[in-house]
């Protein structure tokens, strides 16, 4: 391929039409002279071809010799574009100024925002950052992020980690406060039962056990007493004093969680119909400013859900919120159940109620499901009991250890 199309796209080329009887002769002459031609096609009346600008002059002569008429259809190429732009210098200058201004302005930090602070005030951190040299208006290239982070950690002892990020013109200071490890104070105290249960095993680390396997304990009962009674020395006359200590140990017991569920043979179901209306409220700084939507909900029975979204956060100094309340129409449908279905429904409700009482991570040892007389007509009752084995010892006054 010896036509550098890219070169001609820059220096400029023409699309011309050739009309006449002997267009082939014209093309052959041009070809022999070494004039670059490309994209030659012949239509009904005339031929069209592309050639470069400098050769056009020679082509004119050839056309005369072969009896053809030339016409320029299109001028293309970067060179033509540049000459067009030259006539509109103002446009070009304005564009360049715009780009330069945008670039310059974006090289400064315009906003400083703080994230991740829970105990410390954002204003406080901002002031510390400003002391370290990071304030709105400072040039980005003169700012050392690591230096600022370092200064902040040194200045505020409550901070565990500081990260400084520059996103565009906004500087985000992410902080993580220190988590105070709770002081393990050695105040004397007993271990009491957190729940009712049947004691299975007692492990004492320090203190004296007050219950034995097989005992039934109730919530709050003292399981391990925080006292040490040193043994009397052999042959000693004085009774040694009991020392008050913090009770430590585990008491494993069987705990039962019970759930009771009922189902009626004539169940009322709440089904959403799909229709809903929405009400929008705009809150500025906590005050409702604008409310769009119906005042009254036109449905008999409905369920409401509200979505709050904070807009303009970080841009305006006061909080602006948009609250969308969606009211979904509910239809109450009566359904007749068979005895078996009602039974299943009641069992399901009982199971659910029992299982939500379970603390996390506890294995269920035994499950007992029994029917229970609900005590009223047209209802079915089911009792679901879960048995677990847990450590029910807890500190008398939590807050230590």
């Amino acid at each position, binding site marked *: 391929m*010896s036509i550098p199309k890219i070169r001609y796209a820059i220096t400029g080329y023409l699309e011309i039409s050739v009309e006449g009887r002997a267009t082939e002769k014209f093309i052959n002459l041009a070809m022999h002279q070494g004039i*670059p031609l*490309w994209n*030659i096609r012949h239509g009904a009346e005339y031929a069209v071809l592309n050639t470069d600008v400098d050769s056009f002059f020679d082509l004119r002569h050839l056309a005369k010799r072969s009896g053809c008429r030339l016409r320029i259809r299109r001028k293309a190429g970067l060179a033509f574009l540049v000459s067009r732009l030259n006539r509109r210098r103002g446009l070009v200058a304005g564009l360049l100024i715009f780009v330069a201004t945008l670039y310059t302005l974006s090289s400064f930090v315009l906003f400083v925002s703080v994230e991740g602070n829970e105990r410390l005030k954002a204003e406080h951190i901002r002031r510390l950052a400003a002391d370290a040299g990071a304030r709105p208006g400072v040039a980005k290239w003169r700012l050392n992020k690591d230096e600022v982070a370092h200064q902040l950690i040194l200045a505020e002892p409550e901070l565990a980690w500081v990260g400084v990020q520059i996103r565009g013109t906004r500087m985000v200071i992410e902080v993580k406060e220190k988590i105070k490890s709770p002081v393990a104070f050695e105040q004397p105290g007993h271990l009491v039962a957190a729940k009712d249960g049947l004691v299975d095993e007692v492990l004492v680390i320090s203190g004296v056990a007050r219950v034995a396997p097989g005992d039934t304990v109730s919530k709050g009962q003292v399981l391990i007493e925080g006292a040490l009674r040193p043994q009397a020395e052999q042959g000693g006359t004085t009774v040694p004093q009991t020392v008050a200590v913090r009770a430590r140990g585990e008491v494993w017991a069987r705990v039962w969680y019970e759930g009771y569920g009922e189902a009626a043979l004539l169940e009322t179901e709440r089904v959403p119909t799909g229709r809903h209306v929405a009400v929008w409220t705009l809150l500025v700084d906590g005050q409702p400013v604008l409310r769009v939507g119906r005042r009254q909900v036109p449905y008999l029975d409905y369920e409401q859900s509200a979505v709050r979204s904070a807009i303009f956060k970080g841009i305006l100094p006061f909080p602006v919120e948009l609250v969308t309340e969606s009211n979904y129409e509910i239809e109450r449908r009566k359904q007749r159940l068979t005895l078996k279905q009602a039974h299943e429904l009641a069992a399901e409700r009982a199971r659910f109620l029992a299982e939500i009482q379970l603390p996390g991570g506890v294995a269920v040892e035994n499950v007992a499901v029994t029917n229970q007389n609900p005590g009223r007509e047209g209802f079915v009752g089911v009792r679901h009991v879960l048995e677990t084995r847990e450590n029910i010892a807890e500190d008398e006054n939590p807050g230590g250890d």
Partner: protein
Amino acid sequence: MSGKGAGKWRQSLADLLELPREIVLNLPRLTVIGNLQCYLENHRGVIEYSSEKVRLSVNGGEVTISGSDLVIRYLGSEEVAIDGTINTVRYEF
């Protein structure tokens, strides 16, 4: 070309020395890519061209390329490139 006898001698010489035949015999070399592109080297001019038929003059005869939407992508003094949907390539020697 000076007759069939001399042509044969030149052909044997080309084979012996493993020279490309089109240079020794001054014949056209045609490269066809699928039915999309055709590249002919060593031609002598364009006889006729339209979007259905392109006729090129070569040493010894003619080459006719017929098809549809034919465009002469490049025309140089030694080679020519034709784009389009090519149906037939015909040699007339």
